[in-house]
């Protein structure tokens, strides 16, 4: 039950892109085609799950026991950057097909604030899934990360579909490109607000 609540909350109610504004750069940058949006979402899901697991372990078994929580930002970003690099190397060796599909997105993910954002959120915020406010345990943290990545993917793919149609639409000169994309994203965010209060 708890896990279902986490997933519904992260995918629909508190969608990471449309209500928390994390990962807006790739949202605007690589959402011109549905296929690229899907590729980016796949890569983000993978990296976000692994990164959250590693940073969770670091926070509770290294930073807190040593009393150096203030090093959180520095440690997390270094871990994520090297993790992305490592995933790229392993993927190239083990599954060239997957690398072909996701490879070009991997370097972009280091500066995707959604990954660092979720890693910091799970170790710093109390959640109220199923009862009193509490910190997430390890399994919940990983589910939370994957659910957020799925929410990211859902918003990306919906938005890419809309933008593909927008290409053909006749919009005023000043609205062309990013402005109309932002306004469309606003309307999409309005639609997602309908889920508020669901959890």
């Amino acid at each position, binding site marked *: 039950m708890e896990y279902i609540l986490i997933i519904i909350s992260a995918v629909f109610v508190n969608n990471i892109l449309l209500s928390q504004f994390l990962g807006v750069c790739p949202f605007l940058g690589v959402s011109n085609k549905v296929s690229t949006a899907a590729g980016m979402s796949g890569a983000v899901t993978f990296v976000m799950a692994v990164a959250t697991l590693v940073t969770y372990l670091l926070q509770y078994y290294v930073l807190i026991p040593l009393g150096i929580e203030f090093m959180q930002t520095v440690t997390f970003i270094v871990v994520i950057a090297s993790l992305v690099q490592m995933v790229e190397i392993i993927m190239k060796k083990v599954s060239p097909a997957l690398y072909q599909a996701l490879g070009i997105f991997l370097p972009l993910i280091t500066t995707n604030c959604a990954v660092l*954002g979720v890693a910091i959120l799970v170790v710093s915020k109390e959640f109220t899934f199923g009862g009193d406010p509490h910190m997430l345990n390890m399994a919940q943290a990983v589910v939370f990360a994957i659910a957020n990545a799925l929410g990211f993917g859902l918003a990306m793919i919906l938005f890419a579909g809309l933008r593909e149609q927008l290409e053909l639409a006749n919009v005023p000169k000043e609205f062309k490109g990013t402005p109309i994309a*932002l306004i469309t994203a606003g309307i999409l965010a309005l639609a997602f607000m309908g889920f508020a209060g669901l959890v």
Partner: protein
Amino acid sequence: MSKLSLITRGILKENPIFVLFLGMCPTLGTTTSAINGLGMGLATTFVLIMSNIVISSIAGLIPSKVRIPSYIVVIAAFVTILQLLMQAYTPGLYETLGLFIPLIVVNCIVLGRAEAFASKNNITDSALDGIGIGLGFTLGLTVLGAVRELLGSASLFGIKLIDGDGMLVFVLAPGAFIALGYLLVLFNKLKTRIS
């Protein structure tokens, strides 16, 4: 290029928000009011100036293969300093901006200036470039924050201008996208009229 134009360039011609579309996450996430926008802008400006200065002075010593991770560590160090300073002196603002303060590390503007400008230019020019781009970013955030505050809660910089509630949607997430979209239209319109 003259010293003055280094500063003005970041404000108008290469404005990070209205021209380059960089750093969109804090732009949308923190501008619920003009004060929050201003605070976030100044925080980013601090990191931008300091990291530009340090990176331009050590750029010659870093092998080019590991330059991006090295820049990220320098930036992360200044973000940590900023976090500690804000926790001590402006706890209220630190609380409101929340997650977006540590996320300055992954702000594309900061790393972008380090790579594109600071690593190739001298310390003075890099510092001026940091000031210019930082002010441009702050200006954009404050304008967007002011528009959202005005429409969303009928006040400006916390001062109530009109009695009543305003349109709540502009304080919430969808309003951020829509307000920035229309501001960009306005900016484009002004730009074509001038040139």
